[in-house]
């Protein structure tokens, strides 16, 4: 009964979404007010219906209804309740439903917060989001029905993949999807702007907070996924450049370019068609990522062969959304104008170069991700081009990007002055070079100069932090006056920028030091043996069997000492999940400010010995801290008061154009 209610509410949601798409579009085109007014209630209704459907699926999981095919395939009665709930998005059908749920939630948010937008514009935005829903709902109902019954019901269920039985599974996918789906708002605004021709500074002001919010979610989502890989996959890596990770990284890069491009559009009315194109690309990459991964196209192209319907549908859906919006772009973008002019050296030009670099980086990740897929689709074999490609492409691209990131905020709009910039940044530059050269000498072990990669990494890290600090200091002290009072007067977006840019520096420092100075040993250890690593002594003290709710395990005890003094005791486990008969190594990690101590069990060798991996990774936590700072920066900027005021202005002056210079350019429209 419950699953049927879920299915029925999905059908109703489809009808609501159709109304939400068609009526407001007709209304906006013909000036039919009643049609436009349908958008908001339809968005609310669609959200409620999707919540109901999602609730029904979750209920089936929590109550072990193994007469539902999808539940039987992804859950088990012995699975702890929290994982039974998270198992809702453990497979293809349920994760699509989660995608839809979050899309309708974002749509609801837009419906609630767009009361001050002109009715026709809000109607178009909601219609575009409704259209995306329609595509998803058709896919769910006809090709990926999560409520399909299994007759006769299964006795127990096939269990959730043990790799996914982790707290990370509960928080990581929803966060990541919030990010992916959140970019649909910027996308819908872009399409609405292209349709209506209202693409001005005010438009950018509306879009910015939504984009920043989505970007923040995506940053946190990627961080959580990465941290999860770090302690679950068991071998101490945290980023593998595999297609699934790349799928989340591409929209992140494009989204980063987008939030910066929006600044220029808002402040100077420039880069309009570029900003719109980025908004389209960011969401398109989100779709490409989710669907390629979720349909199994990337991990195994044979999903196409197994279910050609799904593969074709995904391709058709992508073609309609991406192809349609790019066609609209080609048709309408030439009319939106160029905005204010700027010279070769200005904040605009610096932001533009950074934008181009970020876009090229996203493009190169796309290339590296699709290349193996294309070969595989053609049945040329399964290939991995792996980290060597990405590292070779990425470091040279990011070096100028990070350098420009330090210069950009210092430069004036319209026209900047090279000697002035040099004067403002020379201290930061000197400090960062000195840090990069000196810091390796201070690292544990015999003093020695860092390798070129370490010095480059440390320089970029120190430069990010030092240039940000220099910018903050100058902004607060320039022209005299009370710096303390100025501190309170700065907008939140500015603090957000400082945090995010400094976060990049912290992140790079973590990556450089963790990769450059890690100590790792993979060895055979007898019970009672001690291994030294990076100044710590790891002792394999004992090993005892233990049981969990749905697994049995061998649990080792590793007291760690330094110079004879106890530091911490680590308990790595080797688990055997009984239903799927799958062994999984659960590493134990002690995270500290300057180092992570990491122990993972490999395989038993003989009666009393095991292969063990011991690692000391310096400054690992800095990687996570850097990402958190970026996310915090995004959050602060999204909450800037200016955007709330912008909507008041919009209510009074529906045709307002905040940047005077943009008016002239609109003459060409």
């Amino acid at each position, binding site marked *: 009964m419950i699953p049927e209610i879920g299915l029925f509410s999905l059908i109703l949601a489809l009808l609501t979404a159709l109304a939400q798409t068609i009526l407001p579009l007709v209304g906006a085109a013909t000036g039919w007010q009643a049609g436009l007014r349908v958008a908001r209630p339809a968005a609310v209704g669609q959200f409620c219906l999707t919540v109901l459907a999602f609730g029904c699926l979750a209920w089936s999981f929590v109550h072990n209804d193994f007469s539902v095919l999808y539940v039987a395939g992804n859950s088990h009665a012995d699975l702890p309740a929290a994982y039974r709930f998270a198992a809702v998005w453990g497979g293809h059908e349920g994760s699509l439903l989660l995608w839809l749920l979050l899309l309708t939630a974002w749509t609801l948010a837009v419906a609630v917060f767009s009361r001050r937008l002109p009715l026709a514009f809000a109607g178009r935005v909601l219609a575009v989001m409704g259209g995306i829903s329609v595509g998803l709902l058709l896919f769910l109902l006809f090709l990926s029905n999560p409520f399909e019954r299994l007759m006769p019901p299964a006795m127990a269920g096939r269990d959730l993949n043990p790799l996914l039985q982790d707290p990370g599974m509960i928080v990581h996918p929803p966060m990541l999807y919030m990010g992916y789906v959140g970019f649909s708002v910027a996308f819908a605004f872009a399409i609405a702007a292209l349709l209506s021709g209202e693409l001005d500074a005010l438009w950018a002001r509306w879009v910015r907070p939504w984009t920043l919010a989505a970007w923040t979610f995506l940053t946190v989502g990627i961080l959580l996924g990465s941290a999860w890989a770090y302690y679950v996959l068991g071998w101490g890596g945290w980023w593998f450049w595999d297609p699934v990770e790349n799928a989340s990284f591409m929209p992140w890069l494009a989204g980063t370019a987008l939030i910066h491009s929006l600044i220029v559009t808002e402040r100077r009315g420039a880069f309009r068609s570029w900003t719109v194109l980025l908004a389209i690309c960011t969401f398109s990459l989100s779709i490409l990522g989710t669907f390629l991964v979720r349909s199994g196209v990337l991990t195994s192209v044979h999903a*196409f062969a197994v279910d*050609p319907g799904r593969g074709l549908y995904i391709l058709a859906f992508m073609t309609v959304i*991406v*192809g349609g919006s790019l066609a609209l772009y080609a048709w309408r973008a030439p009319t939106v104008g160029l905005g204010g002019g700027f010279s070769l050296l200005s904040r605009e030009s610096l932001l533009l170069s950074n934008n181009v670099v970020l876009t090229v980086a996203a493009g190169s990740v796309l290339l590296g991700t699709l290349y193996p897929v294309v070969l595989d*689709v053609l049945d*040329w*074999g399964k*290939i991995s081009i792996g980290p060597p490609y990405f590292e070779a492409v990425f470091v040279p691209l990011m070096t100028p990007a990070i350098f420009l990131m330090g210069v950009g905020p210092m430069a004036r709009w319209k026209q900047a002055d090279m000697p002035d910039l040099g004067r403002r940044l020379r201290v930061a530059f000197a400090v960062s070079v000195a840090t990069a050269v000196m810091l390796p000498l201070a690292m544990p072990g015999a003093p020695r100069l860092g390798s070129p990669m370490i010095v480059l990494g440390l320089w970029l890290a120190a430069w990010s932090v030092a240039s940000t600090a220099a910018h903050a200091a100058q902004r607060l002290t320039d022209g005299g006056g009370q710096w303390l009072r100025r501190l309170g007067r700065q907008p939140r977006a500015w603090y957000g920028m400082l945090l995010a840019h400094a976060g990049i520096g912290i992140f790079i420092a973590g990556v450089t030091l963790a990769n450059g100075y890690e100590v790792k040993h*993979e060895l055979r250890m007898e019970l009672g043996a001690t291994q030294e690593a990076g100044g710590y002594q790891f002792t394999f003290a004992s090993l005892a069997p233990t049981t969990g709710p749905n697994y049995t395990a061998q649990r080792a005890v590793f007291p760690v000492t330094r110079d004879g003094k106890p530091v911490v005791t680590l308990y790595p486990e080797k688990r055997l999940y009984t239903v799927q008969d799958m062994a999984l190594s659960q590493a134990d990690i002690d995270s500290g400010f300057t180092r992570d101590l990491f122990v993972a069990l490999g395989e038993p060798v003989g009666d009393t010995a095991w292969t063990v991996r011991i690692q000391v990774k310096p400054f690992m936590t800095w990687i996570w801290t850097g990402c958190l700072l970026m996310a915090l920066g995004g959050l602060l900027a999204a909450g800037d008061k200016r955007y709330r005021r912008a909507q008041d202005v919009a209510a009074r002056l529906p045709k307002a154009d905040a940047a005077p210079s943009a008016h002239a350019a609109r003459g060409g429209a």
Partner: protein
Amino acid sequence: MLRYLLPLGAFMAMAVFLAMGLSRDPRAVPSAMIDKPAPPIDLPLLQAPAQRLDVQSLRGQVWLLNVWASWCGPCRDELPVLRDVAQRHGIPLYGLNYKDKPEDARDWLARNGNPYVASASDTDGRVGIEYGVYGVPETFVIDGAGRIRYKQLGLITPDIWRTRIQPVIEALQ
């Protein structure tokens, strides 16, 4: 106008290509290297860096060169097949450890088992270029005269081994 059409054009090209891929028949891999002499390898051995892999000494027998790396996911999937090839069929199997850190590669072999007679460390991928390596894994069948007779792009599944590689090797022997 034209430049505004560029993004659409790029996307449509990708979409058309993917659509073609959906319906395309499997086909053999063309390789410029087929029937050419196998380039010399002359690289330090992974497990014994003091020694070098000498291709000349393999003259007179059919052998396999498998390109692998510890960072490559599919490489682990093809290990059972490789082990089978080396042990049951007794074909000399050599590895080219491509763009990898030797210590990572040794860890990987220790963890997953080592099917190779020996592996050469191609840390900078120089020899990989000589062999025209697209990606990892790849496998070359080299005959007694030292010529490349077959190249498998991507992992060897039991099916590919049975239907494509084994017949080639048997014909050569």
